[in-house]
């Protein structure tokens, strides 16, 4: 062996080839099966993708680096189930490009935050966390009250559709209008949002300012959607408890 290596050290391209070969094995064995084994991700029947407004909120969540302090992955450990709710399923992030599981909990997990607080709580908390939780160390985000930039929404849905997220032509075409309509329950477009994304999609004026579509609308809509895109996790937990 030593002799062999002694000779390998004389051939630079030999070393290059050996490094690539040896380094490739682990990744191939661990990653390739994830794409072929069917059970890795079973999409539940009731699973819906994010609405355009929620997707815009997700982009803001990424832009502001919320993921640096918040995970979105409840592990299958007793205390996490008690603190946050049912453990996260692979399917729940199947449409997430990229996933936002996170690696640090400076703040609590957000995978099940949807429905936990009112819209106005979130709004007050984001503008000044310490007005709600006096000892919070979360940064304040007062600038989220500015108008939402909707120019990229349609292209975003189209791009995600190319990657396999089930957005159909109708959804893509109406993306910009749907983003606005979701925050205007009384407008003409509201019905269309329900048709396309389901009866359970919340239609409300998230930031309490009916005249403007703001980044706050988008972020709050996104937070309220977390953990509600499918009921599968709760169903599974109920079954396991029996």
């Amino acid at each position: 062996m030593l002799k062999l290596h002694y000779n390998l050290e004389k051939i630079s391209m030999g070393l290059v080839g050996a490094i690539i070969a040896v380094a490739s094995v682990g990744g191939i064995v661990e990653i390739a099966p994830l794409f072929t084994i069917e059970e890795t991700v079973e999409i539940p029947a009731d699973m819906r993708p994010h609405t355009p407004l929620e997707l815009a909120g997700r982009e803001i969540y990424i832009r502001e680096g919320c993921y640096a302090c918040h995970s979105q992955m409840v592990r299958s450990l007793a205390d996490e189930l008690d603190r946050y709710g049912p453990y996260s399923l692979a399917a729940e992030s199947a449409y997430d490009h990229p996933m936002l599981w996170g690696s640090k909990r400076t703040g609590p997990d957000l995978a099940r935050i949807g429905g936990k607080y009112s819209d106005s709580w979130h709004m007050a908390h984001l503008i000044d966390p310490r007005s709600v939780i006096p000892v919070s160390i979360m940064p304040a985000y007062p600038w989220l009250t500015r108008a939402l930039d909707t120019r990229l929404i349609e292209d975003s849905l189209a791009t995600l559709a190319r990657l396999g997220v089930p957005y159909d032509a109708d959804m893509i075409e109406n993306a910009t209008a749907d983003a606005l309509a979701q925050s205007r329950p009384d407008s003409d477009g509201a019905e269309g949002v329900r048709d396309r994304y389901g009866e359970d999609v919340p239609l409300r004026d998230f930031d309490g300012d009916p005249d403007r579509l703001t980044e706050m609308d988008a972020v709050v809509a996104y937070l309220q959607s977390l953990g509600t895109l499918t009921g599968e996790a709760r169903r599974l937990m109920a079954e396991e408890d029996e």
Partner: protein
Amino acid sequence: MAMTSTLTSTERQIGMALSILLVCLGLVMAGVAKQGPMMVHGGMAVALGLVLVFVLGGALYDQPEPSPERLTQYDDAPIRFGIVMTLIWAVAGMAAGVWLAALMYWPEATPPWPATSYGRLRPVHTSGVIFGFGGNALIATSLYVLQRTSRARLADALSPWFVLIGFNLFCVWAATGYVMGQTQSKEYAEPEWYADLWLVLVWVTYFALYIRTLARRAEPHIYVANWYYMAFILVVAMLHIVNNLAIPVTWGAGESFTIWSGVQDAMIQWWYGHNAVAFFLTAGFLGMLYYFLPVRAERPIWSYRLSILSFWGIVFFYMWAGSHHLHYTALPYWVQTLGMTFSVMLLVPSWASAGNAIATLNGAWHKVRDDATLRFMFVAAVFYGLSTFEGSFLAIRPVNSLSHYTDWTVGHVHSGTLGWVAMIVFGAIYSLVPKLWGREDMAWPRAVEWHFWLAVTGTLIYVVSLWNAGITQGLMWRAYDEGGALSYSFIESVEAMLPYYAARTLGGGLFLAGALLCALNCRATMCAAGDRVDVSDRPLVAQPAE
């Protein structure tokens, strides 16, 4: 400008042509984007290209042709530039780290505008220190080591400049992008698609330069430090390309969606993330260790066999370990188990490397005692051993159930990055700066001693306070009272962290003060540059003209 004095007029002309191409690229980017971060980045490329055009153009007229004698010397001008950039990024990246640490204790200090918010500055810190500080140090030292151990001059004069300037453009794009809100959110791979593509171009040039220079070597064998540098270059390329595959939303938006999603994305992200640790923060720096430590101690590497064993062990085992970042998640159980198993096995080659380095110092302990530069390298090897032991321990599933998501991880990270990565870089810098600027020693030799103690104290305070923080946090999250209810609300665990966060800020502040002292010391040394020839340098073996 000294930078251009070793370029021939043909090389200056080619350089100008490349700079004009860079200006064009910037114009295209700005023109397609019309707004937002991508336009700003295009503008930066234009500005950089114009500066280079003027510098090179000026040199064409004002500077004489370099003497043919340069071909009998090593090409060190780009390395000097790389060292200066290393120091600049060290101060900037660590200052960002200290500021972030302070914000976690004192969140009210966040200014009410977006650019400097915690979430945007955190990747400025991580990219700034890993890529800016670590990356420049790796590229600069690799080119130094490559030439000395091959006894050959770099294969051409322009590509090292392209690699270093191009790499720094990538780093600046990355950091300014985050501040403007542009990020892919993939940890340690946050820059957007065009910056990623640019890095591929830089990296291919770097690899080609390495291989072409190796081909000119006058030594039959490729020295072990170069194996590590090569593994660093090759595997980082592999990881970078696979993890960053993405489709832009529109050509002008500077935004994209990664092609991976959900659990597959998580696995690929941490296959990347963990091996960024392995091949960026470990393999490359082991290359540095394997060259600078024996040279400084004037002892040969203790065991050749052990260096072979640990090299291939690291290249093979590390690539399996990424899934230890995903214990108890939705990732299939067997993948987690593989990740855990290989992480534990990884301890063998890791300790073989650390042990080999420490055993090399046998017989030179008096030097370790007297020479702060060598002591930096010794402490680096010790912390390398400690943090890999800690890593293998954290990878065990039940341990990870406690440590994951807590500040224990951050403590582990900084025992590796401060104790190992930064210390070995400082050791290499203090060895190189006097040599490269033609002096016998650093301008302020006593300051090296001060820096050493600031760095060690800072690291210990940082790491110990976060061990406490992380373990406390983990225990509070899982504590139940007699009634079977959780004992603590989340916010109570946050409050319990505050003293530790304050202590960490202090530790980081000391470490930063040391880095600043290092930068000033280097500046003083550079300003007093002499023309002393480094007699210990191995002579270059003359090459026939190409």
